C-alpha cells in the first residue's frame, strides 16, 4: 500500500487557480531571485520584470494528467514578444485577475540557454514538450 496524492484533485486545484483570471508570462530581470514563500502575487514581483518587456498572454493553456508519470502537467503555446530589446534569464507564470495585488504567481522557471538579449528582435520560449511544470502525486 503506498501513500499518494490524487491527480484529479491536483488538477482541480490547478484549474481553479488558472480560472481566477488570465494566465500570463513575464520575463524577469537577471537580478531577480524568486522567493517561493513570499512572492505570492504579481505585485510582489512586478518591479523586477525585465526592462523592455511586457507580459505575454498565454494561449492554449492546458492542464493534463499524465498517468504514466503520475503527474499533472501545465502546458501552453510557445510565448513570444516581438521587437524587444531586453535582458532576461528566467520567466514567471502568473494569473492576471486585473489587480496586481490579487494576481497569484505560480512558478518561476529558468531559461535553459541562460541570459537572452534580443536587440529589437523577437524574444520567445520554445516550451518543453511536457510543458512548463508538473505536480507529481508521489
Amino acid at each position: 500500500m503506498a501513500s499518494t496524492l490524487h491527480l484529479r484533485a491536483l488538477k482541480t486545484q490547478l484549474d481553479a487557480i488558472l480560472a481566477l483570471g488570465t494566465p500570463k508570462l513575464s520575463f524577469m530581470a537577471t537580478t531577480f531571485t524568486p522567493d517561493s514563500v513570499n512572492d505570492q502575487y504579481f505585485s510582489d514581483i512586478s518591479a523586477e520584470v525585465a526592462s523592455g518587456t511586457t507580459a505575454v498572454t498565454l494561449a492554449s493553456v492546458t492542464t493534463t494528467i499524465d498517468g504514466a508519470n503520475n503527474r499533472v502537467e501545465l502546458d501552453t503555446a510557445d510565448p513570444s514578444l516581438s521587437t524587444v530589446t531586453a535582458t532576461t534569464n528566467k520567466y514567471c507564470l502568473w494569473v492576471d485577475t486585473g489587480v496586481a495585488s490579487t494576481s497569484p504567481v505560480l512558478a518561476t522557471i529558468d531559461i535553459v540557454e541562460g541570459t537572452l538579449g534580443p536587440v529589437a528582435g523577437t524574444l520567445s520560449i520554445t516550451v518543453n514538450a511536457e510543458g512548463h511544470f508538473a505536480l507529481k502525486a508521489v
Partner: protein
Amino acid sequence: MALVVESTSTNSSANAASVTVTKPSGVATGDLLVIVASKYASPAITCSGFTEAFNVSRNVGNLTDFYLTILWRIADASDVAAANYSVQMAANDDGGIAAMFRISGWSGGTPSFIFSDSDSSLYTNATTPATLGMSGIEIVRPSDGVLIMAHTINVGNTAPGISMASYTVTSADSNPSWTELVDASVNVNANTADNYLSVAYAPFTANSIITAYAATLTESTTVDFGWGSFLVALCEPAAATGTNALLQVSPAIFANSGMADATGTNALLEVEPEIFTQNGTTTTPTVWQNEAQATTEWINEQL
C-alpha cells in the same frame, strides 16, 4: 554580415553654434551613419536627418554643464551625394566636438543601442579620479557588433589639459582592441570654459555580458568638472529564443508514526444489559360489603 567601421571623421568648433563634419569616405546606400557629439550646456545637439538614440547631460546652470549624444541615420542617395554634415550645437557660443562613423554590414531595421551611461557627475578639484567609468552594469551582446565608448568633460577653465586613454570593458572575454577616434578639447562659452570629448570604438565577436567600462584620465590642472559617459554595444536586430526544462514538483508526504510487528486482536465485547427494576403500583379496588344488620321484625303498635 558583420558590422565594420569603414571610415570616420571628426571636427570641433570653439564658441560656435555648429560643427561641420566632413562625410566619412565611401558612404554607400544602406550604411549606418553614427555621430557622437558633445557641447557645453543644453539644449540638445541635433543633425538634420539623424535620430538621437539617447543622451547624457548635466544642466545645473554653471560651467560644468554639458550635453553628450549619439545620433544615427541609415544612408540613402542624399548621403552618397553629401559632402559634409552640420551638427547643431543650438546656441551661438556653445561650441563642441563631433565624431562620425560610417558602418557597413547593416542589413536594415532600426538599430538598437544597448547602452549603459553614467549619471552626470561633478568632480571637485580635490577628487579627480585616475579613471572614469561605470561598474555594476549589464550589457548583453547577442551578436557581433561594435562597442563605442564616449566621455565628455566640461570645466570652467580654458586649458585643463584633459586626456583619456586605455579604454577597457570588463566581461568574461578579454578586453577588445580599441581605436581612439577623438581625444580633444575646445573652448566654449566665449572662452570661459572648455568642453572635452573622447570617443573610442572596438569591434567585437564575443557575446559575454559586459559588467563595467573605464578609461584613464589625466589633466594638467585640477579643476571642478562635470563628467558624463556611455558605452554602447551596437548590434543588428537579433531575436533570442530560449527553452525550459520541465519543472517537476514532487509532494512531501509526511510519514505517520505507527507500531511495527504488532497484530491486534479483539476480545468479544459482551455487554450485559441492565434491566432496570420497575417500581410498580397496584390498586385493589375496595369492595364495599354491606354491614350485616340484624333482622328487625317490626311489630305494629296497638292503637
